[in-house]
């Protein structure tokens, strides 16, 4: 019998055009497209991964980056267990915005939310280091101060993209194998409840075989 599936609601935040959707596309479809349409409102995608023999289902909310969409964000990070705060290492402004998002998440999102700070577009500086405008150390410092996971990624070359998600997956408390299917990790969370009941039926069917 396989272990139950743990669902993780994950939200992506960050300034416009830093590559949020591209990171998701890379993670979900291992694909990249140069000119992706901006996300209007939010997009929703899922991806399952196996970590240490446990299946984790990422429910990914990819949000719009433009400043004025910020008022919609709470709708998407509501109940999120994990967040990717993305900035573009060639755009200092996007790092300031990332700081703001981290602050907002700490104040407004669920208390134990796991946040990963992601500096994207490292492919740009591969040939020309002078394109870099946000030092790696700056990101590391912020991550340390705020207790965040930190990665520099490239959605284009796939560098570190999966690692971000896997790292988050490892930090999320897994559903206990021994617990009954209805026993959920966070009982007040409707979403988890639903997932649990769905698992219960699938397990039942697998047992009957």
């Amino acid at each position, binding site marked *: 019998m396989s272990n139950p599936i743990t669902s993780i609601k994950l939200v992506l935040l960050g300034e416009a*055009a830093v590559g949020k959707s591209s990171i998701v596309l890379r993670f979900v479809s291992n694909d990249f497209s140069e000119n992706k349409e901006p996300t209007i*409102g939010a997009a929703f995608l899922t991806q399952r991964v196996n970590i240490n023999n446990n299946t984790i289902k990422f429910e990914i909310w990819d949000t719009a980056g433009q400043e004025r969409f910020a008022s*919609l964000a709470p709708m998407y990070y509501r109940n999120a267990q994990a967040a990717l705060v993305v900035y573009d290492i060639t755009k200092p402004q996007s790092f300031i915005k990332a700081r703001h998002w981290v602050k907002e998440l700490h104040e407004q999102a669920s208390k134990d939310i796991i946040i990963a700070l992601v500096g994207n577009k490292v492919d740009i500086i591969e040939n020309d280091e002078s394109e870099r405008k946000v030092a790696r150390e700056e990101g590391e410092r912020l991550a340390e101060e705020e207790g965040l996971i930190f990665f520099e990624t490239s959605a284009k070359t796939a560098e570190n993209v999966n690692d971000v998600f896997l790292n988050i997956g490892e930090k999320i408390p897994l559903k206990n194998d021994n617990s009954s299917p209805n026993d959920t990790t966070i009982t007040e969370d409707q979403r988890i409840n639903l997932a649990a009941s769905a698992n219960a039926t699938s397990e039942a069917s697998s047992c009957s075989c």
Partner: protein
Amino acid sequence: MSFFSSLREKTKILDRITESFTPSLTRDEKFKLQYKLPSEEAILDDANADISFISANNAVYDESKKQNGLKGEPVAYIFSGKLYLTSHYLVFKDAFDESSCVLILNISTIKRVERSPSASYSFALMVTLYSSSQLLIQFIGLRYKSEQFCELLKQKLRENIPNAKKLDKFLATCYSEFLISKNVLRRKDILAPRAGLGQHYKYPAHPEMAKEKAKLRLWFEYFKENGENLAIMKNPKFTKLVRIGVPSRMRGEIWELCSGALYLRYAFQGEYERILEENKGKTSQAIDEIEKDLKRSLPEYSAYQTEEGIQRLRNVLTAYSWKNPDVGYCQAMNIVCAALLIYMTEEQAFWCLSNLCDVYVPGYYSKTMYGTLLDQKVFEAFVEEKLPVLNDYIVKHDIQLSVVSLPWFLSLFYTSMPLEYAVRIMDIFFMNGAKTLFQVALAVLKLNADDILQADDDGMFIAIIKNYFRTLGESAHPDSPDIRYRQITKFQELLVTAFKEFSVITDSMIAQGRHRYQKGILENIETFVKKTQVRHMPKTFYLSTDDLSNLYDIYYDSIETHKISMGTGSSNMTFEVFVQFLGKFCDWCKPCQMDKDPAFKKQKEDFLRKIFNNWDSSSLGELTINDVVLGLEKLLTTDLLESMNYFFTLYDSDSDGELQREEVLEMSEGLILLTEPWRSGRLVDFLTKKSIEDDIAEKIVKENGDVIQSMEEIELPTGVVIEEEKYKSEQSERYLKAASSFLQRSFEYAKSLDLSEEVNLIDLSDNEDDSEAKESKRKKFQSLKHNAALDPTHSKVIDLATFRMIILADETYELFFAQTLRLSIHLNEGFATSSTNKVLKSMLDGIIADGKRVAEQVRRRVDSVATRGSVNSLDSGPQTLGGSITRSEDIDDFTSEHLEEHADLLQDSLLDIYDTSDHEGGQTSQQRKLETLKPRPVSEGNKKEDLIEFEA
């Protein structure tokens, strides 16, 4: 009251009642909105009339009608209704059924107007248009009214003559005109007018589905019968032609005709180019944001992979961002605009986008997107009402509807549906308005209800809808035995459901819904914006979170042009607003009687200007809220040295660390201005308060003398007479004295430009120097010396250390920087309620009422006068006494402060300066404070030494 006036009153009341239920629009506003006319087109006059449109083209080419024995007279339907005249348009609508006939005619298309003989009507006009089509207007009603209407029409005709010259050029850009020319006038050589990107890059559509040629022919027939572009009669056939899908070549013009963008483009010819030209090379936040998205707008459409397509998109989006800076640019506009540009030229798309953003979906793309949020709320209410089962399910499963529906509305379905379907929705949207979005959205939910009722969460919900949109071209009934059913696509089914079943959703229902939820949505946005802004304010030490929150409120309350919830208007502060803003919570900036004195007013302005410029970090002549936060932080410092340093930098205009003579004079003026409320006795400072309290305590002790055994016995003498004027004048004198000694000391201790040093330097260096240089230096020195001799103050400067010494030499000014200034800034109070005219009287009342402190004084006096056995029991005394005296209802600025707290701060800063180690001991803090305050500098020289030590 006459019968009529009472009737009028009654209708007014009725109007007011209905207004409170529905948003009120004036007749003109409704009219312009309905016929999509530019905002200038107010109704000048109206008349009842029967009209007939006699098409030149139809009369000429419809042979059958000629043979019907009507003597070649053209035949036409007669419509009865109302005719409206605006400054550029004649509008007619059928009185019985508006959908049966609406005529919108630009006056400049009229070639000739003549009276027409009419048997059955008292008065008739035959209007001949540029196209040779004719309009017969037969007036109904009083003749003089009809005459009046005609007079006005004549006047407008004359005024529109200059416009007629622009007509030919404009018509050459209309595809309808091209169709007529090519097919009616048989001009085979004529070229199609410039159009959208689709002209070269192909229009997105299934050729077999689009039936382009057949549809074009239908439109051609329609124009022949009913006129086109600037002079067109819209009847049910028009609606039908739009519904079956406008042919791609015709689409641009129909969109601009339906949206009214055509009228704007005609009225403001050249405006688009002018905006682009005027703002060439300029940058803005909107432009940066646009650049990011240019390559991300319908990237699959081939034209947007070319520089030509990108450039057109860039032009239109930037032009709009300049035209409406309140909106600027919002993501989703790029996609909508990219779609427009497939069918339209840049200029057409620009006006269409303008009307779309401003009239069709107001507030959708604003800085706070309030329109989007509002319409989501309205939509949710419709779902609850029209699809209750689905709604219950969604609520039960905690699925957020707006997660899927928000992008539909915001991007007008372009990001959800394949392009060829989205443009079909757009056809109807431009004709019928925003209700189209609601109707289609409801239909999508309804048609997918069975599947949605199986969905557990947002993810599945989204997947169902995604899949539905992807398969819109497939059969809606693939398993039906009837081939006709099988042929119906999901898209056709969607249109039928949307526009038949949900035709119950009307404009007024939407208007009512928006009205109902507007307040709540706007309030939510305001709360959100405030929370975010306060969160992102600079880190402050002296301003608490509450202070920042209050500051935010006062700040935006002052900028009246800025609407937080709508994100319109600049959120920056000009100098004029800044003065009002500070006046709301700074005692020394509040409007006062002295303001009437022009000299005082000028001084005040100069001083405030200094602060303003100092705070203006961007040097743009405007302050942001963060500038204000950082500025106030400096003023509110509890550190005496920081406070003095800051004041010094305000006057050190060249930041060389030294104040010139002029600057010193200015500074003394600034100080006089800043201390005006205390000088004039409007406010009392700590020293005055202290002396009042001392006097009262003294009195109590004197009167009761040795009788006081315990604090319980102390009673505040009722009706103590406070000599208000005495304290007032004492304080006033003190401030005047401080001001004069400031100036005096400034020049006494000002450092002379060190001439002797210069001499020494010369002496030292002149060993090797050639005599010429030596001579010139000597000369220079001589002249310097000479000047100094002439005007001893001229060459003197004050540096920071000297300034601080001078301030510290005066108790009043020292206290001012240590405490009084800071306490005169009231961010922690309800600014709206604080009265500006606080007089000393009320202050005194407050002091007396606050018996606790007076009791402390008494206790101390008792302690020191008679150190007797009963002292031990006094500890609990003050509280008891304080409790026995009720606080005054009118608690004033000063009494609401906790004196002890300030005393501590004061003490800290003072202790820093005076080395008062010998003051330590078992004394109470009150006493300590008193003593630190009391020693007045005996000799200025000593004081200076202390200071210098401290500085090191």
